[in-house]
Structures are given as C-alpha cells and as structure tokens.
C-alpha cells in the first residue's frame, strides 16, 4: 500500500469513533451552554475552574475500569454479566472510590486556587464540594452501569471490548458528566 492509501485506511478506521465522541462532546456542549448551566457556573465560582479536571477524571477512572474488565473477560476471570463476583465487585468499588475521591480532590484544588488568586472569591467550600461530589457520585453509578452493560453485551456477541471501551468512556463521560453536574448545581442550590 502506498503512503496515501495507508493514510486513507487509518482515516476510515478512526473516523467513526471520533464522530461518536464528537456527538457526545456536542451534546455536553449544548448542556454546558444552556441558560441554567451558565447560571450554575456563575452561582458557584470555582466550578468552571474544576470543569476540565472533572470531565477528564471520568476518562481516566472509568477507562481504567473498562481496560481491567476487558482484560478480565479475555482471561476468563470475569463473566460477561452482572454477578456478585469478587473481582467485579472489587473493580467497581475501587472505581467508585477513585471517582468520588477525585471529585473531592478537584474541589479542594479549585477552591484553593481561587482563594489564593487576588480579587477572586470561590463559592463556599461545602457548596462547591457538594456540587462536585454529588455529580461525581451519580455520574459514577451511571457510567459503571452503562459501561458494563454495553461491554458485557458486546463481549457476548463476540466483539473485542478493547475496541469499545475508549470511545464509550469518552462519550458516556461527557454526556453523564455535564448532565449530572447541572443536576447537582440545581440540587445543591435548593438545599444551600
């Protein structure tokens, strides 16, 4: 194959995945640009600062969970269905701890950075952390449920989970992350 043909081959191979991820990103963007979300971002200074880390954590935590489950399925250590298997339960528990823990860590970073910046005041720490941890916890549940359902179903139909996980995690992460962030600003807004 000449170089040009090889470029076309890589392009064709990668484009569908990028378009799926683009779709998820645009959906997240539309939610982010909506009036209630922008009000939330104004009401909780520090939230915009935390946003990229919040969204990126999804990829790192649940991408790792997906990769682990993928290897487990290939090795026959994990069955492709929801069971109280110790390995599956452990992997999910660890992902929840990491996911929620990182939301808290990001709140601390964001609040601290804005506090140290002259002329800026972050939202009260408990409110900022409340929004991010609540959004992180709900996203965690939805992501794990969605990711495992699709990976298990795909594996049972003979698909290689390794090809599914990357784009799935990015797309689900964008969609759930922003929607639940919006939900969390509304819930904390009512309570606080």
């Amino acid at each position: 194959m000449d170089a040009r043909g090889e470029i076309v081959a890589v392009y064709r191979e990668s484009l569908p995945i990028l378009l799926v991820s683009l779709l998820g990103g645009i959906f997240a963007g539309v939610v982010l640009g909506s009036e209630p979300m922008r009000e939330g971002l104004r009401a909780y200074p520090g939230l915009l600062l935390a946003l990229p880390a919040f969204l990126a954590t999804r990829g790192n935590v649940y991408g790792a969970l997906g990769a682990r489950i993928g290897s487990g399925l290939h090795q026959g250590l994990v069955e492709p269905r929801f069971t109280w298997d110790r390995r599956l339960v452990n992997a999910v528990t660890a992902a929840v701890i990491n996911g929620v823990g990182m939301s808290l860590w990001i709140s601390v970073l964001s609040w601290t950075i804005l506090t140290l910046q002259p002329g800026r005041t972050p939202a009260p720490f408990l409110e900022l952390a409340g929004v991010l941890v609540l959004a992180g916890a709900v996203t965690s549940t939805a992501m794990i449920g969605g990711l495992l359902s699709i990976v298990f179903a795909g594996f049972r139909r003979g698909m290689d989970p390794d090809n599914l996980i990357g784009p799935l995690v990015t797309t689900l992460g964008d969609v759930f992350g922003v929607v639940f962030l919006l939900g969390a600003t509304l819930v904390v807004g009512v309570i606080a």
Partner: protein
Amino acid sequence: MSTVDHGDVGTWRVRRIVRTMAPLLVVLSAMEMGSGFVLESLGETYLDNPTLLMLVPVMIGMGGNLGAIVAARLSTQLHLGTLSFDVRSRSLMVPLGAVLALAGTVFSVLPVVVYAFGQVTGDPMGLRKLATISLVSGMTLAVIAFLLAVAATYVSYRREYDPDDVTIPVVTNLCDVLGVVILSAVAAAVV
C-alpha cells in the same frame, strides 16, 4: 490450582487498585487544573458566548483522541520494530496525514452543528467566526498532538518504558489540557 486461582483475587483487591491508580489520578487532575485556570480567567467571555462554551467539551476530549491515535500507532510500530523517527519516513508521515485529515473533518462539522444549536438556544456567534475559531484551534491542536505523541514515544523508546503504559495516558491528558488553552487563545484573538 483452580481453587487457588478463584480464591486469590490478587491484583483485583480494592486497596491495590485504588493505590495503583490514585497517585496518577491526583497528578493528572492537578494537570487538568491548568486548563481550568485558563477557562476561569476567560470566564466572562465564555459565559457571555454560549456557542463558544459549547465548543469546550469537544476541545477537552478531541486533543486526547487525536494524540491517542498517533501514540497507539507509533507504539505498535515500536513493538514490531518497524518504527523510524526519520522526519520523512512513512512511520511519521502516515499518522500525521491521517490526524490532519481527521481533525479537518471533525473541526469542520463541529462549528456547523454548534451554530445550528445556537439558533435554537438563541444568540449564536456568527458561523464564519465560529468556523474560524474551531478550525484554527482544531488544526493547531492536531499538529501539537502529533508532535507530543512522537516526542513521548521517542522518550519511552530511549528510556525503554513500555509506551502503552506511559505514552498514551501522558499524551491524552496533556492534549486535553492544551485543547482548552489553544481554544481560549484563539477565541481571545477572534472575539
């Protein structure tokens, strides 16, 4: 043996998984605060231009995707022993060509769709302005993602790290950070 295998959860212990992942996550999320900082400094520009804000999640994710495509390809070639770091080699020209073509497609579709949504939510930025911001920042990001992936693979090769463990997470996260930084720089110049 089989009873040992089923009883010994080994690397699947909760504490072990959390301990392995947490330090990396702590560092990566601290790195991501860099793009949060840029986003926050231009907060008013973004919050006053909803269509600009709509580009943000795609810019956060797409840099990493493009970087991962190059890095994964280089990593496979490195494992197979067919990788060349010669600037004019096919090893480098093919992923560069592919990543530019992919970015060209994605960042042309993006402003059109976002503009259409902007019509519904009201107050969209002009299509030409939006397309300029999307394409200029998207193509810049693609070139940087390519360069970073090549540089990171080169470092893994010299230091004999497995690029799958090192290159891909570093490149994707760094590209995610740079996506927002580049978008903000371009937007600040255009708006």
